[in-house]
């Protein structure tokens, strides 16, 4: 029989790994420069931990049972685990906490076939920081990540969940959820069919299309009849847009989810390739989430984002990523079986230079085969070692 991986799982071979590491290392360097620390949480969590935030449906989680019959799930994202760890395991730490992660996540695809189950994500959570400066930090950090990857055509779609939610308050309570659903799903046809007065219908349609150039959108919102709390959110948003400067930005107040998870900023980062736009990552502010995990219900503000490494991989593959695994710098060849010890010692000597990759020729074979092997593997130099330990260096002839 042939052993296959389960549907949706995949093996990452050395070249895939080299490319994935290239992305991860670039991101990690940026995270470190912004003074973020890595956190590692368990792959398995209790299902109730994963679902507490309200953003995760149980049917999308790959579930298991432990010996006590508790229901566990493979994490579909990291924020729930980090929130749990922060409030239960890090009591007494000083805030803000700047955390980052680089981990695999698992999703069960609803439509059944060929969906990938295991993904990799890298992201940050800034805990205990609220307000304009924390918001600006996270978005500028995201921009720094994308720029350090050399990503060309990316764009940030930025919304404000609290502001959008408050703008929904003008609709009759029984219809609010439906209006929100239509806006979240960009379903103008269903929105027009709702039993709303002409004024409210116009208002709902305006909300569905409340996006574009930040200055124009801010002006459009400012012209609405706003409560003082809404004004203050709007002013914050205006200051944020100014701080973000050159970040390619679409302000989109229709960017909202059908459930209450985000409590402030909400954003998606998108690549605009010729083969179609795709989401590379997402994030937002969740000021209520940590309170759900805290034993005394004490809330700590938080904001974060995650980048989907598979999507970054796809976008960066043609231009940025290494197209081959690293080659060896040296091939050390024992000239006879009596020379093995000397060859091992010589190779080890070469390895004292930490930048060099040194391999030993395992097969005793004629010299022309060794040279052919070195040429095929693009190994720069061959060291022929004899039993006395003396070596002859031979540069490999190029093709």
């Amino acid at each position, binding site marked *: 029989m042939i052993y296959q991986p389960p549907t949706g799982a995949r093996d990452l071979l050395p070249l895939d790994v080299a490319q994935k590491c290239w992305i991860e290392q670039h991101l990690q360097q940026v995270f470190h420069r912004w003074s973020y620390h890595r956190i590692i949480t368990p792959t398995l969590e209790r299902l109730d931990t994963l679902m507490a935030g309200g953003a995760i449906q149980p049917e999308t989680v790959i579930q298991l049972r432990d010996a006590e019959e508790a229901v566990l799930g493979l994490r579909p994202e990291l924020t729930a685990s980090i929130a749990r760890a922060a409030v239960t395991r890090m009591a007494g730490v000083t805030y803000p906490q700047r955390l980052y992660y680089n981990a695999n996540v698992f999703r069960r695809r609803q439509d059944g076939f060929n969906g990938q189950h295991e993904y990799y994500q890298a992201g940050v959570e800034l805990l205990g920081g609220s307000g304009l400066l924390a918001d600006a930090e996270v978005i500028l950090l995201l921009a720094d990540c994308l720029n350090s990857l050399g990503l060309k055509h990316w*764009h940030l*779609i930025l919304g404000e969940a609290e502001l959008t939610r408050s703008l929904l308050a003008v609709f009759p309570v029984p219809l609010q959820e439906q209006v929100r659903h239509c806006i979240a*799903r*960009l*379903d*103008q*046809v*269903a929105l*027009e069919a709702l039993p709303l007065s002409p004024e409210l219908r116009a208002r709902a349609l305006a909300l569905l*299309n409340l*996006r*574009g150039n930040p200055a124009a959108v801010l002006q459009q919102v400012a012209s609405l009849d706003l409560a003082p709390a809404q004004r203050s959110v709007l002013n914050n948003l205006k200051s944020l847009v100014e701080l973000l400067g050159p970040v390619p930005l*679409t302000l*989109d107040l*229709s*960017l909202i989810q059908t459930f209450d998870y985000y409590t402030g900023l909400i954003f998606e980062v*998108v690549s*605009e390739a010729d*083969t*179609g*736009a*795709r*989401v590379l990552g997402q994030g937002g502010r969740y000021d209520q989430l940590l309170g759900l995990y805290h034993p005394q219900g004490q809330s700590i503000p938080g904001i974060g984002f995650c980048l989907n490494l598979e999507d970054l991989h796809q976008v960066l593959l043609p231009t940025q990523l290494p197209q081959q695994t690293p080659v060896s710098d040296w091939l050390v060849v024992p000239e006879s079986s009596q020379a093995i010890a000397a060859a091992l010692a010589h190779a080890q000597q070469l390895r004292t230079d930490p930048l060099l990759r040194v391999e030993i020729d395992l097969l005793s074979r004629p010299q022309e085969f060794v040279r052919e092997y070195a040429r095929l593997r693009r190994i720069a130099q061959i060291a022929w070692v004899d039993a006395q330990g003396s070596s002859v260096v031979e540069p490999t002839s190029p093709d």
Partner: protein
Amino acid sequence: MLTIALPKGALLKDSICLLKSIGLDFSGFLEPTNRQLQMPDPTGTARAFLVRAQDVPVYAEYGQAQLGIVGYDVLKEKRPQVAQVMDLKFGRCRLSVAAKRSSHYQSALELPPHSRVASKFIHCAHEFFAQLDLPVEIIPLYGSVELGPITGMSEAIVDLVSTGRTLQDNGLIELDVLFESTARLIAHPLSYRLDTYRLHHWIEQLRSVAVV
């Protein structure tokens, strides 16, 4: 370049006619000898894909087409994540339950429990009978669904009806209507948000010419 996915079949002619009225001419697809799967419009501002109706929302969901035209029935069956921009009002039809005229059923509720229902719209059919709380076995068929009751394979069918002629000619009678369907303009959500290739300009053009 702005890319529009167009459905083969009943909606194609009206779709091409509508796009022509805003200056995008893909009438080459209507030539009987046409074998092209994609074509640019003569002014070079947009191109169109010609695909099966069920595949239109797929191209719009993944973003290879920024716009698409497809029947509401397909959207209801496949539930793709696309923006529903506009009801284009043409291609009106309905998804109905039908049975043999000789069976004398008056409504779907009278079907015996655990009967078989043949349909291409398996999700819609399943949802409908689940709402009726009537257990049935759905048999997926992808064409000539009317043969289900004729051959005795199924008690009833769930299928699209426009004039009712096909049902009548095959000795079937419509019992219940699941929903009415018309052609919809759909968009790739991210392109819609980003206004890729001046998407909203074209949508406004279509709004101004579409039948109200």
